[in-house]
């Protein structure tokens, strides 16, 4: 693509159209751009457009986004259509000055684009970058152009972030050394010069803001450079750095801080970055840091006492408390040992931070999903409530008794205040509950916990139960949520009779209008159903939920009608769990399937929440499986309900749901008695559309469905060239290592279920495509699958058929395959059914085939026996080496649904050799029988070709079945 007025015009128009509300021009523009992206110098042209002042800002912004995304997919040399080196060089030359002169929104995009390049090229392939940034930084500082200063620092910050998440190694240290050599000293001088400017700008709020942001970025760069090790330069200049850091913790900047919440937040971000840095030094460079420690503890402490008493300032509070927590677990823990200090910590830091704030209440009401994520699912590591508890835990590491005593007293205190005036002081009770739950130690099996702070049973009885028994399901919702959370967390410790007495109340809370409350109620029931005694025995069974099943399901489906809970995953998960456990009578099954189908139809409109959707499909699969297995007469009713929805998914191309739909269809096909009803045969034909097989997420589900058809209706295959189509799919799958195994899953049922006469004409073609694959890229998995296929063929259609069919490709081919593939790799077969099948087939070959009984083939015979004995006598983990999974990059095209297996729509493993119970016995018996016919012939062959260990194993096998080989 050449840069000229036409290109400019073309690209401008495209980017303008991508913003169009009309789908038609938008799609066309997107298509044009994606086609153009394949031409060389496209990236360069877009970048030039971004830089073109005459073009509308909106268009340039959209171009900048496109540019960044273009680099993301194509900068890596291993991508399908990489950007050429020449174009890359030009982009690298242009991007820094462009970024610095751009407007803020474009600057942000270009800075990200630069980071994308940096991830691959910096520093080795882009030696000019850091010196360029350094000299620009100096110029910008001298010119007091702080917008550019911040642009440069932000870029450096994103370039250096890679030092924060890689293991130490020589190459990464070399990169770090390069960055330190070039940027450590400039960073310090930048910090010092900005510090001077901050003092000078004390009253100029706008400038001060930029400067404080600049210092924050410098702190983040400091963090990246110090993460892996303490660099010499920073050790030598520790005094200077620490005095800067302390400055920002102790100084106030009224012009910014007092100008509103965002001003305060800006300064707090800087202080938080400082806290991160000193925490890191405290943790890893304690020796260097100790002389600064007490000064910093004092500074952080004073800051915290003020911040804890004010609303907001969450981020600062969290990082500051984190610092104190690290100190409390270090060798300097004695700093916190004094009774007075401990008292202050609990009273002035912990309690104020655990106490609910207005913003917590707001989140509870406005965004229940986020509230739950933090409150219940452990994503609260960065909340002040949680981190305050972490500080207590940290101190408790050395002063457990003192902490337990103080916290128990605080809990008592809170409850007493609540008792005085429950309506006004309810937050104190919430605080008490939160402390108990958060200070509990997590235990295995999900989220169960234990605590020393209170006696769980009596706390439950006196504090929690009254809340759960409250009649108004909408009153004091945060307390109700806290009580439900407590019940859920301590579910293992609450004795069953007590829990059972409350279950009805929990079911009642499902009808609360408050999203958190009905979600917690659902979650509580779901988790209770998972409680196991002694690790195996479910504590609550169908008998326990039977009596309230109808109202439970009614309330659950009712909750899905509440505003914002239409796709509530906690509710759907609970439905799924109940359906897995409860006894499902037709009276329950019928409203359930109707309810679930209604929900399904709704989410098909616009699939949003994958967890919800997965639970939904899993719930349907469970219901179908459990209800229909028990009562096959339900099948038609279920079909009537479900099939239209599934057909709609296919017709409307709701591609996200394809894998689920195929699995459910397979389940339905399995439930039918042959012959399969005609409406399914339409689906069979859809299934053979080659396009569907192009998406990797569809493949396992399609294979699953195809198998069901092949087993239920093998003869249908003969009609209308379907077999040819199926074999075409097999060919396609087996040609790629990533889907080869699926290919065999298609082929095996054909071999197993069809007569040889039907497939004879195709066999030669099948073998030759397999052997070609074998020649071109022989993977261990391919070899295993092939041995299993040949074994299956052998036991189903006979030895001679197998041999002839393979030899029809090329004379004597079977002998070659046996010698080079089958025998050497027999021992790599895994899985009970597979081992059994291949052992039986191999033994049959050994004892019944003239080819091997030919005296000239005695070496082959001996080797095959050796392989069989290894397979039968050694456990899998000793025979097989782990093989690394080779990632497959070949097929990332466009949107991909992912395949998720539905646990309840699974297929039971079919054993093609049900008549043989013990493959060892079978094999040894066959062998003993053979040796009786040819007395004396085999022992010398065994002595010669079977390894001593296997000879011993064989002898042992014979003895255990009381058989002999003579």
């Amino acid at each position, binding site marked *: 693509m050449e840069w000229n007025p036409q290109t400019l015009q073309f690209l401008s128009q495209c980017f303008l159209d991508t913003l169009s509300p009309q789908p038609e021009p938008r799609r066309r523009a997107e298509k044009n751009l994606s086609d153009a992206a394949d031409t060389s110098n496209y990236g360069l042209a877009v970048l030039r457009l971004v830089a073109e002042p005459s073009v509308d800002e909106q268009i340039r912004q959209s171009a900048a986004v496109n540019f960044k995304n273009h680099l993301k997919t194509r900068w890596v040399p291993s991508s399908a259509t990489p950007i050429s080196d020449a174009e890359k060089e030009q982009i690298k030359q242009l991007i820094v000055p462009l970024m610095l002169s751009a407007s803020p929104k474009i600057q942000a995009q270009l800075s990200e684009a630069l980071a994308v390049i940096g991830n691959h090229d910096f520093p080795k392939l882009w030696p000019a970058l850091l010196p360029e940034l350094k000299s620009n930084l100096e110029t910008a500082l001298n010119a007091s152009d702080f917008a550019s200063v911040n642009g440069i620092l932000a870029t450096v910050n994103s370039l250096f972030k890679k030092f924060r998440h890689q293991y130490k190694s*020589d190459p990464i240290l070399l990169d770090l050394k390069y960055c*330190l050599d070039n940027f450590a000293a400039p960073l310090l001088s930048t910090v010092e010069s900005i510090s001077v400017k901050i003092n000078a700008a004390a009253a100029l709020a706008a400038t001060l803001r930029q400067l404080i942001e600049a210092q924050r970025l410098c702190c983040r760069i400091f963090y990246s450079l110090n993460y892996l090790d303490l*660099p010499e330069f920073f050790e*030598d200049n520790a005094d200077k750095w620490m005095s800067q850091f302390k400055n920002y913790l102790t100084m106030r900047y009224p012009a910014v801080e007092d100008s509103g919440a965002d001003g305060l937040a800006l300064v707090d971000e800087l202080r938080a970055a400082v806290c991160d840095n000193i925490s890191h030094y405290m943790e890893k460079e304690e020796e260097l840091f100790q002389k600064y420690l007490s000064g910093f503890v004092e500074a952080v402490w004073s800051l915290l006492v003020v911040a804890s008493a004010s609303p907001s300032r969450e981020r600062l509070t969290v990082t500051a408390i984190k610092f104190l927590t690290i100190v409390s677990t270090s060798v300097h823990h004695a700093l916190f040992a004094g009774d007075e200090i401990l008292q202050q910590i609990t009273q002035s830091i912990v309690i104020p931070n655990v106490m609910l704030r207005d913003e917590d209440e707001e989140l509870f009401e406005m965004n229940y999903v986020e509230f739950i994520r933090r409150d219940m699912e452990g994503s609260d590591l960065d909340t002040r409530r949680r981190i305050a508890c972490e500080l207590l835990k940290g101190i408790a590491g050395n002063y457990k008794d003192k902490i337990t005593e103080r916290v128990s007293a605080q809990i008592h205190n809170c409850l007493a205040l609540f008792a005085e005036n429950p309506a006004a002081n309810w937050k104190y009770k919430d605080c008490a509950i939160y402390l108990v739950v958060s200070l509990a130690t*997590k235990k295995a099996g999900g989220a169960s916990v234990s605590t020393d702070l209170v006696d769980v049973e009596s706390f439950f009885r006196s504090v929690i139960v009254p809340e759960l028994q409250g009649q108004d399901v909408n009153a004091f919702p945060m307390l109700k949520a806290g009580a439900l959370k407590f019940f859920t967390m301590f579910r293992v410790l609450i004795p069953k009779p007590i829990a059972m007495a409350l279950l009805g109340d929990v079911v009642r809370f499902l009808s609360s209008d408050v999203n958190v409350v009905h979600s917690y109620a659902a979650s509580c029931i779901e988790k209770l159903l998972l409680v196991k005694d002694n690790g195996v025995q479910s504590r609550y069974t169908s008998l326990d939920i039977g009596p309230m099943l109808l109202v439970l399901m009614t309330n659950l489906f009712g909750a899905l009608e509440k505003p914002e809970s239409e796709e509530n995953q906690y509710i759907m998960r609970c439905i799924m769990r109940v359906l897995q456990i409860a006894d499902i009578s037709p009276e329950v099954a019928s409203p359930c399937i109707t309810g679930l189908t209604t929900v399904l139809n709704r989410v098909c409109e616009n699939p949003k929440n994958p967890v919800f959707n997965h639970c939904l499909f899993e719930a349907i699969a469970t219901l179908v499986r459990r209800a229909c297995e028990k009562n096959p007469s339900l099948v038609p009713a279920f079909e009537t309900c479900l099939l239209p929805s599934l057909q709609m998914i296919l017709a409307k191309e709701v591609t996200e749901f394809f894998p689920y739909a195929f699995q459910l269809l397979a389940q339905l096909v399995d439930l039918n008695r042959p012959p399969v009803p005609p409406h399914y045969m339409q689906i069979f034909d859809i299934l053979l559309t080659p396009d569907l097989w192009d998406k990797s997420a569809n493949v*396992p589900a399609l294979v699953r469905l195809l198998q069901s058809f092949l087993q239920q209706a093998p003869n249908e295959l003969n009609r209308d060239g379907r077999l040819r189509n199926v074999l075409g799919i097999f060919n396609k799958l087996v040609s790629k290592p990533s889907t080869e195994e699926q290919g065999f899953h298609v082929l095996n049922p054909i071999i197993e279920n069809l007569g040889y006469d039907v497939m004879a004409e195709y066999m030669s073609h099948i073998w030759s495509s397999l052997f070609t694959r074998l020649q071109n890229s022989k993977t261990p998995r391919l070899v295993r699958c092939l041995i299993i296929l040949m074994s299956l063929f052998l036991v189903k259609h006979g030895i001679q058929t197998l041999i002839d069919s393979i030899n029809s490709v090329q004379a004597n081919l079977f002998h070659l395959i046996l010698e080079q593939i089958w025998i050497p790799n027999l021992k790599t077969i895994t899985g009970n059914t597979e081992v059994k099948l291949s052992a039986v087939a191999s033994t049959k070959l050994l004892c019944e085939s003239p080819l091997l009984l030919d005296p000239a083939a005695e070496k082959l015979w001996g080797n095959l026996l050796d392989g069989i004995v290894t397979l039968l006598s050694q456990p899998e*983990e000793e025979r097989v080496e782990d093989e690394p999974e080779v990632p497959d990059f070949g097929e990332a095209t466009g949107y991909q649904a992912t395949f998720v297996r539905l646990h309840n729509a699974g297929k039971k*493993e079919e054993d093609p050799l049900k008549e043989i119970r013990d493959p060892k016995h079978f094999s040894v018996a066959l062998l003993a029988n053979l040796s009786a016919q040819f007395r004396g012939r085999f022992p010398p062959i065994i002595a010669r070709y079977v390894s001593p260990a296997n000879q011993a194993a064989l002898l042992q096998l014979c003895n255990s079945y009381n058989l002999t080989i003579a």
Partner: protein
Amino acid sequence: MAGETPPSHRRDSIKQTVGNAAVQRRRQLAVSVAKERREAMFRTKRLCMEGISMNLEAATNGEKMIDEEPPVLESQTSKAVEELKLAVSFKGKDAVQNKVNALRELRRLLSRSGFPFVEVALKSGAIPLLAQCLSFGSEDEQVLEAAWCLTNIAAGTPEQTNALLPTLPLLIAHLGEKSSLSVSEQCAWALGNVAGESDELRDLLISQGALIPLAKMMVPDNGSTVRTAAWALSNLIKGPDPDAATELIKVDGVVDAILRHLKKSDIELATEVSWVVVYLSALSDVATSVLMRTDIVQILVDRLAASNNLQSIIPLLRSLGNLMSGDAYTTNVVLDPGHEITDSIIRSLSKCLKSEHRFLKKEAAWVLSNIAAGSVAHKQLICKSEAVSLLLQLLAGAPFDIKKEVAYVLGNLCVAPADGLGRPSLLLDHLVSFVRNGCLCGFIDLVSPADLEAARIGLHFIELVLRGMPNGEGQKLVEKAGGIDAIEQFQFHENDDLRMMAGLLVDSYFGETYGLDE
């Protein structure tokens, strides 16, 4: 057969990702951004305050340090350079003596430890004059004094060291056999200071041919010369490019000389020589394999057993650790668990673990971790020694970096080397005994985002506890020690490896069954 057969790589995927790394020998990384503490103190550059000459009485004649004020000395320095300038241009009788006197005055001023007036001397144009004084055919005494001046200039700041550039070929030339011992030693000293400055200067010196003459200086038994040459060499070969180390080991007689000096010499000389061994073994596989064919490990271990001072122990530990991590032969054959040498090294290492110096503790733990990566018999030997109780104490209370090294030792002790199939197995009695002695908390402390390698070894150990402790006790122990919170910190971490490991641990041991059969 059927589609639901799980893929065949399902077996124990967690063992693959988690267990193995505990049994690796670890080499120190060649690149470092941190301050080289031990060397910054004693090594990199040295001021030469007292003469090294033995036969020039004049050198020490009337050399009282006079406590003049700095400004006075400053003007004295520029005056001394002026004097030298005059002396150099003077052609008459006593020309040599004049030069020597002027040089001696300058050298005296440059040898003051508090205020070496290097900057003044350089500004006054000392370098070209000193270069002239080094010219071929000059009297030994003159060359010696000039080299001495250069030595102390090179001991200064990087810029000052770089000022020597024009004199380097001459300094190198005077290393040759034709020079007197004292001259070559003084030149070696100057060059050692230059080599200590930067990678670039090291490369330059090597390209100008400094390596071989310095190496040859190590061969005779002359204590002082050998010491200086060894020190200069250790600066010259310390990388990061391994070629110099490989070249050094190939110089005739060097290997024998190293062994001889290590075995017989006084402690100072042996220390310098062992620093050479440190860099040889750290950088060059060729050098390591040459050294392995000698009895060097025995010699080092004997030295270690006899040493009590920090400066001499550090390079001995470092050399031993390098030799072990570079080549499995060391641990497998030389340090056979049945040999007395192995008991001896473990005793010495235990002594270091008890030392006051954190550096010794850390280094000793590193060496021990390499022995602990050996055979099961090695592991048993360590477990029977007093080292284990020391390690457990350190894990509980030492600073972070020592803890991390100790964690590697204990981790290695719990896992047997990989069998033929590439999968290591657990040494249950060791694991159980460590865990009973409370080591789990120490490992869990390491699982912090502050240091990723530490987090990795911590997670590995947690996995061992979960998998190995009898009666499924592992889960409860990990829970009780706050392990779940620690693991969860990594469930969304940017490091792929740690994120995957944390995910696997949570899923395999602490997750809930999603599907739940009836």
